[in-house]
């Protein structure tokens, strides 16, 4: 598998919701009976690091949707993504389970490769915009 589990989940959660849902719809008939273990919205607390003293503290909570499924092959898929779109997290959890069980992996990995390119391109554009604001300060 060209992508690690961490990479594939990260690429899927960062991808636009609709293409992920469309892909999950395509994969769905190959997964057999599906057991939904978790499908809810909730909060993830984000700790942060104080650069003055190294203290960890809570910056605030992030609204997320969380899904966990078990497919007929026995694999469990899991996803958390930002926002309250439960269909999105469910789609990612199904794709995660399919990857764990080796179902339609080439199709999913093709999608991951496309997403990787798109996400790298978006970051590259953002960082080139950032670089255009670099300034050299002079004192008189």
């Amino acid at each position, binding site marked *: 598998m060209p992508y690690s589990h961490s990479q594939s*989940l990260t690429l899927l959660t960062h991808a636009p919701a609709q293409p992920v849902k469309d892909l999950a719809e395509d994969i769905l008939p190959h997964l057999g009976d599906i057991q939904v273990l978790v499908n809810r919205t909730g909060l993830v607390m984000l700790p942060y690091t104080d*650069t003055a003293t190294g203290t960890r*503290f*809570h*910056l605030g909570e992030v609204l997320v949707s969380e899904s966990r499924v078990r497919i007929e092959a026995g694999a469990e898929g899991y996803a958390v993504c930002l926002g309250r779109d439960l269909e999105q997290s469910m789609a990612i959890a199904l794709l995660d389970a399919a990857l764990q069980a080796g179902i339609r992996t080439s199709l999913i990995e093709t999608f991951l490769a496309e997403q990787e390119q798109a996400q790298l391109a978006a970051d590259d554009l953002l960082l080139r915009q*950032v670089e255009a604001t670099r300034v050299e*300060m002079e004192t008189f």
Partner: protein
Amino acid sequence: MYVAAKGGEQAIQNAEQFYGLLNGPLTLEAVRLIQERLPYLVDRVMGEGSLYSPELAALALAQTGGDLYEAVLLLRAYRATQPRIAYAQPASADRLLTVRRISASFKDIPGGQILGPSLDYSHRLLRLDVLDAASSDQRSATNQTEERAVNGTGATNGSHQLSAIRYPPEFTPAERPSPPNQPAVADWQRGQGLLPPTEPEQIDPAAIPDVTTDTVMFPAPRAHRLQALARADTGGTLALGYSVMRGYGMIHPTVNELRLGYAEVELTHPVTGAVFSAGRVKVSQCEVISPDHGEQGYMLGFAATLGWNEVKLIAASTLDMDMSAGGENPAHTEEFVMYHTEPVEASGFCIHFKLPHYVTFASGLDNIRKMLGAMGWDQGKTTETAAPAAESESKAEDGEQVEEAVL
């Protein structure tokens, strides 16, 4: 004294609908527009609401007509309905996808000065040309409509100036990207011996002190102080921070580092243990620095928040430094700062005074009248103004204590 109330249900419903009528229809389009076009306002609501959800923050703003305290209250109330399902891996400055990082203390910081999205060095002039173009465009459209009415033609040859003005103007990105991560300026200073060495605290995120679940005691753990500042009211923080900057404090802050960026929300897969990012959230942080008159060369103040909110962070990090230094001024006192910059509690307590306090007031009035009577004041002169209160007193004496119209 708070009492039950009855009557006026229709008036209350009408008042709410009148409020909505003046704010315009609450639509998905309005929410999307706020989310896309007012990101700094959305960030402020998320930071003070202590809940990262641009969509819900925009909805709260649309629903309240832009009343920030009402919007923050809505977000906090929604947050209270949701379970906390996980703790993310701690985020830190050196791992942020950084889009802005500046220092006012050192110009040649490692990684350089990146202005990022900023109006710092821009002219603060209203773009009246946008309005003029819109007016011109509207006049043009009106003229064309009139021409059609007169000539029966739909031909147009006027230029639409609206489409000619692009604001904000586009710019050309650099050939090469900026590094995604930038080192902390403080680490560079530590390497030069200007600041004492420090290491990130090693602690289970679930064990970090939390003001939303713990009883806050003073002196507060530093984690409580920084969390309280992260969710503090921008205006309140600015007022107290400004007070110490102006002179009710001993410290002149210099911004050591101001940073805007995106933090990954990293979670652990419950089955395989793989760590993955559930997405990125906007965060900002600020350090201020000042000479330490004690043993160390310099001391730092720090603050961070969800979303991008620079003025709050500069004020909050200044307050952090002042609170650490101590002093007699209220803004140097942890308890004073933390209690009085909590937006929901402060605004809630303030606006509760507009709710009926008739019994409380009548009670005081009764005492004043007795006192005036004992002093020989002729109450007959004030019969007209005293009448309504007398009625209220009568009800209270009858044991009804019915003050206002809710049911």
